[in-house]
């Protein structure tokens, strides 16, 4: 399956909405911890979900600079691109 930047972001927002605490406003700029209330163990859970969804492996090092959902999108997109599964 191939993805577009839009469909990646839509999917990410969906996943993060599922993991964010009640009442959190989930946008691309949301910070995982401060805005969404996802703790570090929760982040690992999100990563596992994303790996399953996008069929890719996100190594630990790739997550080192991640703060917001947008950062996660970038990490996912660059891997999809390397696999030739990102359009546009």
């Amino acid at each position, binding site marked *: 399956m191939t993805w577009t930047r839009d469909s990646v972001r839509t999917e990410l927002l969906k996943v993060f909405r599922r993991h964010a*605490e009640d009442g959190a406003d989930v946008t691309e700029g949301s*910070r995982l*911890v*401060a805005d969404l*209330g996802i703790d570090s163990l929760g*982040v690992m859970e999100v990563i596992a979900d994303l*790996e399953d969804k996008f069929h890719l*492996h996100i190594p630990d*090092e790739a997550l080192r600079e991640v703060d917001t959902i947008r950062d996660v999108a970038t990490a996912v997109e660059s891997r999809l691109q390397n696999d030739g599964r990102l359009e546009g």
Partner: protein
Amino acid sequence: MSLRTVVQAIEDAAASTKTGYRFVDETNDAEPFFTHAGVERQSARFGGALQALGAKKGDRVALILPDNTDFVFAFLGAIRAGIVPVPIYPPTGLGKLAGYLENTLHIVDKSGAKLCLTSTEIKRMLGSVQAKAPRLEKVVAVETLRAAREELRPVKVDLDDVAFLQFTSGSTSRPKGVVLTHGNLAANVRAIMEQGLAARDGVDSGVSWLPLYHDMGLIGFVIAPLYHRNTVTFLPPLLFLKRPVRWLETLTRHRGSISFGPNFAYALCVKRIRESEMEGLDLSSWRIAGCGAEPIRAENLRAFADKFRSVGFSDRAFVSCYGMAESTLAIAFSRAGAGVKTDVVLGESLWSKGLAEAAPPPAVTPRPAIPPATPSASAAPSVPAVDEGKGERGAVVGGRDPNNTTEGPPERPSTIEIVQCGPAFDGHEVRAFAVDDDDSAHPLGDRQVGELRLRGPSVMRGYFDDDELTRLAFPGGWLRTGDLGYLADGNVHICGRSKEVIIVNGRNYYPQDLEWEAGTVPGVRRGNVIAFGTMKPHNDRERVVLVFETAVVDPAEHIRLKGEVRKAVQQSVGLTVDDVVAVASGVLPKTSSGKLQRAKTREAYENGILLGRSSAREVDRLEVLKELAKSQIGYFRHALVGSRDEE
């Protein structure tokens, strides 16, 4: 058999070509297996390579090796050459390198390490460390040693020689280097394997995802199995956090019989492993499910047993463990094969008299811990565990009347359920003393709560290059644990950390009990509640403050929530909280291992910065990073992305 050095254990195990270490890799299905004969050869190469780099017996070598395979062989290789390894956990990649480097520099400098062995990637980050640690001669990339062929030149190593330095966190200090000799290791391994677990040589098989820079992973699963030629399968720590089912799958696949985890690991399995993932699991070979390294909550373990009983897990596999790095690893284990045992005591006696008086057989049972009004709370244990400190406990306040809203002690007696961690090992002694008994002159009696102190062959010689800290750690020759607890029929029970007790009108309250109760109120983020006592602002008496995180933002709702929290604590513990504070998610400071930091929260509260929404963590960023580096087990809990600590 007489005690052996680790070196001797490696050489003896080499006769075995069937048992050894297996390393699971996340990205592919390969599981390289090294027989004990292979372990002997691989470690000899690393030892030889370190000698070729100029390291001699007694020299310290810092190891910062993210890969389990590299770590194990470099660690054992150094030990065989008489070189003293100093494990340091790898950078967590939080984008906050400065704090990590500062901490690493402290350990490297304090240990006087001459060499640092690390990966090429990490080596690039360590430039400043090398520049600032005058005794550090070289930083070497491990990749260059993997193919080394230097012969290990034999070195005489005795039981009295230092085996390695275990840097450990202090709640208020920089990491301290626990000096462990081969004699310490041999004594503790014997206690763990022979007395604690009745391990069967060459037969029992271990599975571990625990980080190897932490005593439970390193001593429990790298060193101890060498002495008894047990096969161990290692998983990367982060793989477990990402996909907890991989732990249980590995136990299934390799018929694992011994595996350990902190309390939170069992809770994580309950929370995260789906029914569909349980198909194919078979945990019937798992005879020792050890739980230690953080406070134990009996209900978390029961929930695990309930969930996995259908795939062969036995309740009786649980072993409750108490230990600390200063005692090599383990201090006491509950009896293998007996499952979780708890002691139900009267809250009133515990708080007012420091006496753990057994509760009369319950007309009101201590379970369920949670009043029926909130049954979902007990079904969803909080992760991570909220308790700070080394003590293992499971305290549950129960038996109360939810309709009792009056001030003063509740009508029915509150009871506390405390996990029993078994007796001290043979040749070791644990006793409770008054905290101010500086000579350890008057051991307290059965069921009297005091500071637990320890002596015996597993106890460290002292802190490396720190006579003052060492002196303070050994009042009258006993090792202070910093844990409050009691002995009942010789069995160790932990109540909490001595520094955190809240004293009101001469009664001692443990913050965990208050926090647990507050966490049952809907709207309060369970596991994100901190209680503490403070003498501020009037300095007249200790005031009880309880801070909780909530997603709720409406001020009117805040007021209602605070009222609920106050009521919950009042009803269960009979204590009036002076100040209840609601804060946003992510504001409460935590250690690297996800434990709430009570002292730090109190400080922020006293300085009036807790409510300055930009958060305690902002202020503490550097402090928190220091914490992170201090706590070795913290690595895997908060290794990633926007860790709560770092926000």
